[in-house]
Each structure stands twice: as structure tokens, then as C-alpha cells.
């Protein structure tokens, strides 16, 4: 979903920002925002009644198609956003499946309210912090075991995605990764948000547009 403010005010941010739909409640959408630069700051400062431009939902999201029985979500930082909605949605789509969420941050201060998270997702996420100030200590991928996992989904910083991808390819676990790219249109017109992809069968490489052909790609599609 692209979130913007129009161009009348020449406001910062000028371009809309891509954001994940973190929650949908009674026809409203919820976003999970980490204040990073101007766009997220402005978004976080909105008051009720303020207006923003929302365009979406756009692109290809996580796909639970193969009826996995154990789904593991790996969230780094604000990469938690798509995994707030996903557990409930997965339970509806796959009543028998087990869904786990691993959620890593730098330190306790950065961690999204654990109670609120439980309320929203209906499950307990396993929290990691790099400095050990909350939950388990280290990087989320440090202790990652994909042994009996059927499907691993990941969203977060690129190094984290790469590590998850390696592990999944090694263990033969189905794996989908949400990548991040600068976006302008969000609709496939500007060809700005490209990601190098590979066709797993032909080996042919090409640039895909993260906004409409992604942002979620299968591990095999990313020639990292």
C-alpha cells in the first residue's frame, strides 16, 4: 500500500511510501510504523481526521497456497508489520496449521508492545534482541532451525532475509521473502523498484518490479 500526501504542499515526503497493511479492522486498515525519516514521522504524527492518500493493496503478498502445517514467520524490526495480520488470516485459511512468529529487534526499547502483539495476532511471538535486553539474546537467525517447518516467511533487513534464504534453501524448506526497494508509483509504471530475479527452471535472470511482481518473492527467485 502506498501512503502519500499529495503534491500540493510540496510536502516532505514528496513521494508516497510503501507500507504493509498490518491490520484490517472493520474496514479500516492499520499500519505499523517505525519512525525513521520524514515520511514515517509525518505518518506517526497524524491526528484523527487528517487525510492521507492510500493506494492499495498492491502487489504480491505472502502465499499460504501449499497448505503448510507449520508456518514460521521471521520478522526483523518493522518487518513485523505483515506478520501482525497473517497469523489470524492463516488460522482462518488453514485451521490445522501451526503459526509461529520470531521477532527480532536491536534492543528492548525498539520492541513493539508484546501484549498488544498477542492481542492482535492471537499468538505469542518469540522475541529476540541483539543486546539481550528483552527475550532471547542475539540475531533472530542465530538459532533458526527449520527442521519441521513447511513454510518460512520473512520480512526485515536484507542481511536477515539473506540468512533466512540460505537456511531455507539448505534445508529444502519453502520460503518467501518480502524485499524492500525505493518506490515511486507502486503500480508498475515507473520501473523504478526493480529486484534482480531468476527463473528457477530456466535460470534466466531479469529485473522484476517489487511493487507489483513482489514485494514477496520465493527464495528460489532471488539470485542472492
Amino acid at each position, binding site marked *: 500500500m502506498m501512503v502519500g500526501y499529495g503534491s500540493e504542499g*510540496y510536502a516532505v515526503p514528496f513521494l508516497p511510501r510503501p507500507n504493509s497493511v498490518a491490520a484490517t479492522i472493520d474496514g479500516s486498515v492499520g499500519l505499523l510504523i517505525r519512525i525513521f525519516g520524514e515520511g514515517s514521522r509525518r505518518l506517526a504524527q497524524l491526528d484523527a481526521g487528517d487525510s492521507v492518500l492510500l493506494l492499495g493493496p498492491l502487489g504480491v503478498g505472502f502465499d499460504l497456497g501449499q497448505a503448510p502445517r507449520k508456518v514460521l514467520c521471521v520478522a526483523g524490526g518493522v518487518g513485523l508489520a505483515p506478520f501482525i495480520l497473517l497469523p489470524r488470516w492463516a488460522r482462518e485459511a488453514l485451521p490445522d496449521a501451526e503459526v509461529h512468529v520470531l521477532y527480532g529487534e536491536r534492543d528492548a526499547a525498539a520492541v513493539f508492545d508484546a501484549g498488544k502483539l498477542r492481542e492482535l495476532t492471537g499468538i505469542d511471538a518469540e522475541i529476540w534482541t541483539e543486546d539481550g535486553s528483552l527475550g532471547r539474546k542475539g540475531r533472530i537467525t542465530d538459532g533458526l532451525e527449520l527442521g519441521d517447518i513447511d513454510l518460512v516467511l520473512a520480512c526485515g533487513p536484507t542481511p536477515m532475509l539473506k540468512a533466512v534464504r540460505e537456511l531455507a534453501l539448505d534445508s529444502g524448506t519453502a520460503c518467501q521473502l518480502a524485499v524492500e526497494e525505493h518506490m515511486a*508509483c507502486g*503500480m*508498475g509504471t*515507473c*520501473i*523504478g523498484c*526493480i529486484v534482480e530475479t531468476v527463473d528457477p527452471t530456466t535460470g534466466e535472470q531479469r*529485473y522484476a518490479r517489487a511493487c507489483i511482481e513482489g514485494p514477496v518473492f520465493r527464495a528460489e527467485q532471488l539470485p542472492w
Partner: protein
Amino acid sequence: MVDLSLQVFGATFQNPILLASGTCGYGQEYSGVIDVDALGGIVTKAVTPKRRRGNLPTRITETPAGMINSIGLANVGLEGFKREKLPWIQENLRSAQVLVNVAGWTVEDFVGVVEGLNEEVGFLGYEINVSCPNVKGGTLFGTDEKALAVLVKALRESTSRPLIIKLTPNVPDIGVFAEICEANGADGLSTINTFPGMVIDVDTRRAVIGNETGGVSGPAILPMGVYATRVAATRVDLPVIGIGGVRNAKDALQYLLAGASLIQIGTAMFVDPFTAPEVVAGISEFCEKHGVGEISELIGALEA
């Protein structure tokens, strides 16, 4: 709604608002969001002889009241365009006019694409992109008077369809290039393409754009575009398509008054995809309010 239709390049445009090349794909991408066929038209992403991957990422970044792009003419190529894109255009764009943006590095490149499309239906004419700052040699023809003359002449001989030359503002006097286009048989001009620009991430000490530099577009360049349009329109008798930074009806009206017959909207569509239809509605309101019966009354109507 006031009737905003006008005759340009021997064809009827139902209103003067087109989507700019490279910012509307091949039209299809916007379907489901806005009614593209209700616009004056669209200009396709550049078509080059062969399919191009384009430049490395990062290709897009923000600038004050604008953006930089460095797409590098990524496109499906002549054959891909005919096979994958033209059918949708033929089927869906029946009221909106379509211009095919053509890019290349040699006269043969340009002529090849034009000749390769001459027999096809579903589009009106060509917008010749001699002004792309994002590939090596992309502005070669647009900044070299002799080369431009040769190119336009060759293109004129290769097609009877409307031939619109899209000029770069990165020259001391865009009027000189406008005159060359007119003298060599062009049917119209598009002013302007982007300005070369660069953004550096001071923390990493790297250029944000993968290719280091790119083209600046958006509201930031609005006054430059209006200026270039004014210069071109006063120096030649060809219709001019005004481009650069349009985000509302007032901006579009500035271009009309400066002498543009048509107007393209690019970057503002990224910021808000409803911009183009809103601009059409806004021009209509303006005409109503100011008793303008025909849009052509506004073209070049700047008062001294």
C-alpha cells in the same frame, strides 16, 4: 463539463491532458485506478529497437519537490511492444490518443523503431526522445544541432505519422533546437524532459542512485518547463506539448497560456494517480468560470 476537445496533429484530443512517457507504462498499469481512455492520451514508455533491462538499482529517489529517476530506458523493445503491449492499447484506448515514445543511439535505431511500427494501428504518432539524461548518449541528438537535423530529416522520410520531438532543457537556447525540428519536418515538439541531477547519502558517502546520476522531474522543474514551452512556442509554428511539474489545473493552464497545445503529466501521477482526471476537471471549471468557450482560446494567450 466544458468541451475541452481540440484538434492537434490532425487528430482530435478529447482534452489536452496526456500522461508522460515513462510514468504511465503502456497505459494498462493504470487501468482499474483511473479511466485512462477518458484522458487526452498517453505517451508510452520509450521503445528501443531491442528489449533493455535498464540501469542498476537504486533507480528512484526524492528531491525537494521532485524526484530523480534513472530507469535507463528499461523497456520491452520493438517486438515486445508489438506483441505484449500494443494489443491492450488497441483494445482499450479508443478515445484517448496514443503517442509512442521512441529512443535510440543512432539514426538507424530511431528509424528502425518507427518503420517497425508504421504498419501497426492503435496509435497516433511518435514522440522522439532525444533528451534522456539516464543513458550514455541519451541526449546526444538533443544537444547537437547538426545531429538533430539529420535525425529529424531521416525520421520525416520514414513516416507520414505525426512526429513530435521531445527536447531537453539542457541547452543554452531551446529555441534553436525547436527551429531545427521545424525546418526538418517535425510536426510538433515536447518540452521538457528532465534535468540531470544527483543526490548523495552523506552517511554512506555514496550516490543514492545506482547509476550515480539521474533526471530530475516534478514540481521543482515547473517554472523551467513553462519557460521552455514559451520559448519554443514563440519561435516555431508547431504545436508544443508542455511537460514538467504539472500537478494541478493551474499548472496546466500556465502551460496552455505559455503556448502549449497539449500538456503531459508525469511525476505528479506517482504522488497521486488521480491527478490527471482532476486536472481535466479543473481546466473545465476554469473555462466555465472565465467564460472560455474553446480550449484553443487559451493557447499562447499570455498577455504582455
